[in-house]
């Protein structure tokens, strides 16, 4: 067969169907109704964004040390600047802040090491992070050893305290939660009923009640010469509370694993712990990532409730700073800063969990 007709040269698509113009036409201006909605939407956006940008950036005051350096036409970031170290370390003595800095540096590098897949020795780093790091942090932050002056926990605060509460809560709640979830599915009546009662009790009371009980009632029951540090009380309350939620998330994941998996493992002669550790939990935990991260994020935000028992977490220290008579009237700046910090941490957790899901999606991807 002979082609005597020359093929038409390949031509670019018409400009109305590619590029920005086409995208705008198909997504924003296809038809009169959508065009009207788009215009209304743009107008609302304009009304919101322009004053915000003007307040937060254009009219804002950035440099200075006192309230007199603020024109009050826009945001007074001078306030945040002057208080930044307090927002991060709380009332930690300024001569000892290097200790908190070392802990911060170790904390973030350990998290980074564990989160970046290329880096080697994961197992050893994890063991270090779970066993050695808490001891080092305690010695550094609390002091009392190696000639380090003691810094009592009521001076801890700010972002440091928020991260401490959240990390201890998460690291403590996950293993307790796994044990409780397995216990609740167990056939042993005492173990099972203990786990059910524990989970239902802690899920049945609001966190604020737990914290109040720990701070108001507990001291009255204990003899006066025995006092449990209020930070420790809050940590225990928070961990037990979260572990109950974690247990239910994990139980949900366990139920999604077909029974055949466990039976097959049993047929191979595996013991209970081997079946769980090698077959069931690795599959279940992978599916539970969104649920677990959800619980972590809500725990991170719940830490602000410790404010009501007089601990200055990030939000608490911002509010305390608002009561300084030299800085009255900058509450908006303070709250915007606190919201931004919380968003940064929660958003990073959320993104990392999505990355983890993609990485572990073997076999269950939809």
């Amino acid at each position, binding site marked *: 067969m002979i082609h005597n007709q020359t093929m038409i040269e390949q031509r670019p698509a018409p400009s109305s169907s590619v590029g920005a113009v086409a995208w705008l036409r198909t997504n924003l201006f296809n038809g009169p109704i959508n065009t009207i909605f788009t215009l209304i939407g743009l107008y609302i956006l304009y009304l919101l964004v322009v004053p915000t940008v003007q307040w937060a950036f254009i009219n804002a005051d950035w440099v200075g040390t006192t309230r007199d350096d603020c024109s009050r036409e826009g945001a007074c970031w001078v306030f945040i600047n002057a208080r930044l170290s307090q927002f991060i370390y709380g009332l930690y003595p300024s001569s000892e802040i290097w200790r908190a800095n070392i802990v911060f540096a170790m904390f973030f590098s350990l998290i980074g090491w564990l989160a970046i897949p290329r880096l080697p020795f994961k197992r050893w780093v994890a063991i270090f992070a779970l066993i050695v790091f808490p001891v080092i942090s305690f010695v550094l932050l609390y002091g009392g050893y190696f000639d380090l002056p003691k810094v009592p926990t009521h001076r801890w605060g700010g972002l440091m305290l928020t991260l401490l509460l959240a990390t201890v809560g998460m690291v403590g709640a996950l293993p307790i939660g796994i044990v409780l979830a397995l216990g609740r599915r167990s056939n042993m009546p005492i173990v099972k009923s203990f786990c059910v009662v524990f989970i239902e009790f802690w899920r049945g009371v609001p966190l604020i009640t737990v914290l109040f009980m720990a701070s108001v009632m507990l001291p009255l029951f204990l003899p006066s010469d025995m*006092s449990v540090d209020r930070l420790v009380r809050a940590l225990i309350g928070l961990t037990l509370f979260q572990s109950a939620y974690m247990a239910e998330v994990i139980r949900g994941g366990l139920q999604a694993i077909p029974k055949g998996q466990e039976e097959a493992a049993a047929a191979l002669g595996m013991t209970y712990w081997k079946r769980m550790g090698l077959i069931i939990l690795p599959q279940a935990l992978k599916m539970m990532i969104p649920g677990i991260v959800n619980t972590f994020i809500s725990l991170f935000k719940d830490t602000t409730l410790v404010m009501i028992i*007089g601990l200055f977490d990030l939000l608490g220290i911002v509010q305390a700073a*608002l009561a*300084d*008579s030299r800085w*009255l009237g900058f509450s908006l700046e303070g709250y915007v800063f606190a919201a931004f910090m919380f968003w940064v941490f929660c958003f990073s957790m959320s993104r990392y969990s999505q990355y983890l899901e993609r990485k572990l999606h073997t076999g269950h991807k939809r």
Partner: protein
Amino acid sequence: MMNKKHLVLLASAGAITLAGVATAQADTLEDTRSRGAIQCGVSDGLPGFSAPDDSGEWQGLDVDVCRAVAAAVLGDADAVNYISLNAVERFTALQSGEVDILSRNTTWTTTRDTTLGLNFTGVNFYDGQGFMVSTDLGITNASELDGAAICIQSGTTTELNLADYFRANGMEFDPIVFDTSEQTVGGFQAGRCDVLTSDTSQLAALRIQLDDPSAAMILPDVISKEPLGPVVRQGDDLWFNIVKWSLYAMINGEEYGVTSENAEEMLSSENPDVARLLGQDGNYGEGMGLEADWAYNILSQVGNYGESFERNVGMGSPLEIERGVNALWNQGGFQYAPPIR
């Protein structure tokens, strides 16, 4: 059935309170000495009374009471651990021994003094509920407020006092209730009400938060009595005396003109009152288990009451509260300390 349950609850609550009081009858002075610091219960942030400053140190009128006690007992005004307490847990913290002194803008009332196992040691600020009005209104005293729209913060005794005052004077008012102090100021600023009511110590702090503080004024009328003072546990009279006289030493210091600057020169003063106060003539700390220089330590490290007032809430601070009834007795106020002799 319901009643029985209630009784059991009440009884156990009572038992807890009693147990708390009974177990906490330790020797507070000895405890603080062995600890090397005083446990001081303060608020979680109240302008002028207790709030951390830029460098993280607690400042305020209430804070100075604890600093004074630390100076008297330990010779170092900085030997204080501040425990911030909210309104609910403040008395429990004191009863259970978590704090040695509660210095947290606490109003002295019969109920608190007689039923909680606590003792008020004196008054470091005579507060009372007042009114802030916009200067445009041309109002000069509270009797002209008939029919006014009034901004109040909810859940405080302020609401009750306000209703009592207006009923007693046969006037009408229109309450506009807000949840937090910031919202209350916002409501006043936006013109939702003509008048804002709160304790006078707080009105000053709220006024600063307005865009134009000079557009509002605080009326001279005060419609309630709110004497604020430090509190200690019942059953430790020695400690009670120490806290009481630490405050009196500050007030006497102002009366005799002893300040943090001139305290050292005053040691050689001929005035017998000053000599007794500063421990140059006799040892008046002995009865409290303290050294003779207890009051000298207070006045040189913390300053006298007037200095503390000016620095924290008075003209030397952004709050600019007038001395008013908090002036000394010989200057038209209520602050009167028994003599040291």
